[in-house]
């Protein structure tokens, strides 16, 4: 056996250094950034799914959200959309955003047009199509190609409120609807205005459980997306970064859910329309009684002077409860008569 000489060991340390550094650098400059980028996209996807659900607490899907399902035809014909006002009166103007626009805001506010030198402000234009390229941070380390292939916002349709108890309430409401049907029909013939009398037409839906799926561009990774990290034949492929796709389809999925509709009044008309469903005297609010009271008012000096002409069957008052400086007004009772002294 020949002795090891200096000449034989020359450069060995360098070789070892290069080999070890190669491994270290692979981890440091490929794996760590890749993990960082992947986690960043994953976090963003998670936040986007939360956003997609919570947006429905602000934006109604549409004005016809629940008007036809599970309701009798004569009720469905009386669209609840009339209760939702879109006008210049901002305080009473309902916010509507359809599913496509919602999906666009998800893309534009979480995935596209960010990571540049200029901060992208939130704007109404976010409901439009894609707002520019994805963040430059989301590029493959080796291939320098964009990682993000696309974002889908799925399962955005409004769903039933998940409750057996609500089902029972719905069944009871349906029974009442059936009882009220002939009454509504007869009163409709007399010109009655409340054709949804005794209908429990509250929104039994209002539940959303959207899913956001951010898909990575697997083919754009160095190696074309076919790399394998545990190949036994030593053929690891032409890239390192695409090995992550060996057992993963490159799709981040995040689910979210929320109950968004609390049945608060969306307009004064909405308020009245929900109240009058259970006001029986609306059956008297018809053309026949209008004629009778007009004739009777002649004996009291005419409609403008008389008392009888003021009668308003089915009157429903939806004025604010009395108060002063935002605090409730105390009730005054005198000899069994209670009133608000306002």
């Amino acid at each position, binding site marked *: 056996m020949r002795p090891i000489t200096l000449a034989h060991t020359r450069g060995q340390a360098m070789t070892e250094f290069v080999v070890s550094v190669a491994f270290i650098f692979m981890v440091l400059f490929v794996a760590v950034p890749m993990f960082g980028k992947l986690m960043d996209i994953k976090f963003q996807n998670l936040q986007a799914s939360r956003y997609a*659900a919570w947006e429905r607490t602000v934006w109604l899907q549409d004005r016809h959200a629940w008007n036809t399902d599970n309701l009798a035809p004569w009720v469905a014909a009386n669209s609840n959309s009339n209760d939702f006002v879109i006008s210049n009166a901002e305080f009473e103007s309902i916010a509507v955003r359809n599913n496509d626009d919602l999906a666009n805001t998800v893309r534009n506010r979480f995935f596209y047009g960010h990571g540049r030198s200029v901060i992208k402000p939130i704007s109404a234009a976010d409901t439009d199509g894609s707002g520019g390229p994805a963040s430059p941070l989301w590029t493959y380390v080796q291939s320098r190609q964009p990682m993000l292939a696309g974002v889908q916002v799925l399962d955005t349709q409004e769903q039933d409120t998940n409750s057996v*108890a609500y089902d029972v309430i719905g069944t009871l409401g349906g029974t009442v609807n059936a009882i009220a049907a002939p009454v509504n029909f007869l009163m409709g013939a007399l010109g009655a205005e409340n054709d949804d009398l005794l209908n429990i037409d509250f929104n039994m839906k209002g539940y959303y459980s959207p899913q956001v799926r951010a898909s990575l561009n697997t083919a754009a990774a160095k190696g074309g997306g076919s790399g394998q990290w545990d190949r036994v034949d030593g053929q690891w492929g032409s890239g390192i970064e695409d090995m992550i796709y060996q057992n993963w389809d490159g799709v981040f999925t995040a689910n979210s859910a*929320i109950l968004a509709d*609390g049945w608060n*009044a969306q307009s004064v008309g909405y308020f009245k329309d929900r109240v*009058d469903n259970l006001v029986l005297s609306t059956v008297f609010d018809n053309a026949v009684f209008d004629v009778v009271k007009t004739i009777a008012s002649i004996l009291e000096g005419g409609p403008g002077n008389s*008392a009888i002409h003021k009668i308003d069957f089915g009157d429903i008052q939806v004025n604010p409860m009395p108060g002063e400086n935002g605090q409730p007004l105390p009730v005054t009772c005198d000899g*069994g008569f209670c009133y608000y002294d306002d």
Partner: protein
Amino acid sequence: MNCRQNGQAIIFGLLFLAVVVMALLILYNQGQLVNDRVQLENAADATVYSQAKLAARNQNFIAYTNRSMVANETSIGQMVALLTWAKRYGQIPSFTTYPVYNTPIAPPSPVTFKQVLDVVTLPYVLMGQGVAAPVNAIVQVWPTVVSYFNSAVGVFQKMFAVATLAAQVETGIGVVEDHEDDPDNPEMYIPVVGWYFFTQNALLTYFGENFDLGNLASLLPAGEAQDMTRDFVGDQIGSLENMINDNTPALGNKKGKNAGGKNSHVNTGEDAEAKAVESYKRYAAIVNRNREDFTKDRHWEVGASIPDLIPEITIPLGIIKLTIDLDFAIWGGVAADGGTAYVSRSALESDADIGMLGWSSIDMLSFGIRFDIGLFVEVELCLPIVGCNSWVLLDIAFQLPIGFPLGGATHQVVREAADAKRLMPQWGFPGQNDTGKWGGDPDDTNNNGAFDAFHAQGLIWGNINPAPGMYGLAGSRDVTPRYAGPPSFFSLGGSFQESGRSYEFTTAVAKSLEDVSTSDSDKHNINSDGDAWDSQNVHFTNFDVQTRSRTEGGDGAAAYQQFIWGDDRPMMTVSSAETYFANPMQTLSDGSAEPASLFSPFWDARLREPSQISLLIATGEIDFEDLFAGIGNSAIGMVGWLLGAIGDRLVNTGVDYLLANVPPPVDSIIEDPLRDGAGQVTDLAVDAVVGELEDFMP
């Protein structure tokens, strides 16, 4: 020496590589933990928000239906008003018998005032009698129908309240499940402490008055107790109250005081009666405020007037100027007044008085003249340099009405005939311008309601003449005992009307750290065909990030924490929300915001910071058994008991009240369907919820 240097660099290289790989794993594990932690918080936020949203739905539903009940109630008043309006005309012949009218108009002609009045008023009499007959038939039925219907709506409110609690359980489960990455392999759950928070909110909302904060204060750090309690229950330091009061007449008498034990949380105490009386006073005031114009005030007049013809006199007296203005106007004609009010014969001071609430209505018709007299005297003093100043010495104005009776009528709709008024003094006195009760307009000096002095003779004649027999003297003709009493309904506690905020909703959501996909838990199933990399052989426990809190350890505190969180290594979070009142589209006349109530549907939900006390409960610093003793120590036990107890306390009590007020044979007809409907909510739905919870809990 050279041999020893062989492979030296690669050793350092491998060591460095190991450090870098470890850093990579830490990075990965941290990322996974943060991701799962965010997911957990998202689920908790959405869960508690959804539960609060369901509570907001319930409060809005109560508001819509309360308004419906008020509108239905006023429709009874409307019918009674229409009846007295018509009866007043129909009873004119009884008023033209007034003795004065038997005198001749122009002697020696024998034609008397009565004869002329009978002819002139004939159209009114015919109209009045024509309208009164069918309206009277309606009044015999309508109050019964409407008050039963209102009571049924009240029961429906209670059923919906129980349905809401059941839905809060189901939605809580559903929201957590819908946040799962893999719905078929759920990992997140609501632990026992989460269901405790749910139970706590429901108990405080409906039975808060049964709890004493004294015990809570003793559990808190001295000096911080008040602030922490305020953060927990709002401005109710001292004594708690229900956020939502279940108002049912005579409920306070029927329910005993707290008997102790678990059910002490749902019994009513003596305060319930006082609160019920206050609530019904408020209900009566709201009903009276919501009367439509015809019901509230039926004033009209037809006549002619001679305006004030006396000019104002100004007398200059040097530096003094005297101004005298004598007003004298005359009006002559026919005037009618009337009003209908939701009143009680009693002063509304006890539970029993609530049942005396009913509708009373009066209408008067007179003709005559009215003098408007006024005297105004002003003196003005003008001095050089100083200028002029004036003083009003006299400013009086009054009316002198002289009216003669033409017609009058009263009608009352009450629960029992004994609740009716019988004599005029129980209604009022002539000249008592009590505007608002029996008609009248404070902004119109000529409109002072049915007890205007203009009708004085008619009012008295109506009491002493047996023919019209007003005020209830005539018995069943003027009193209809077909009212079933005021409805059972929910109202908002006093302090909540001021704050507009609910009790805190809190939920807890957890998942086992074993289920977090870190290198420790090996959820990635790193698998190389059974070799040394197999998941069974690899445990990187050193990279576990310590998020475990007090569950670690073997002491009692750790055991308690493990119990309430359902795992010995939980990743856990709590989240809180509340319902709040804000009417964005209407303001008060002074421009301020509408105060909170359960009569306006402007309740919504929002997230809030968990209170310190909730955090102390969640971390096990406060044992929830110290706050709510005996409510159970399992999620299923607590929720099952709560839904059952509230169902019994609210729904069944409401059904009993309704049936007690429905006369035979109607009660036997409606009892079965009513109890079946209630049973579906209180039994079937609750059983289904408990079953769902059993499947959900780990």
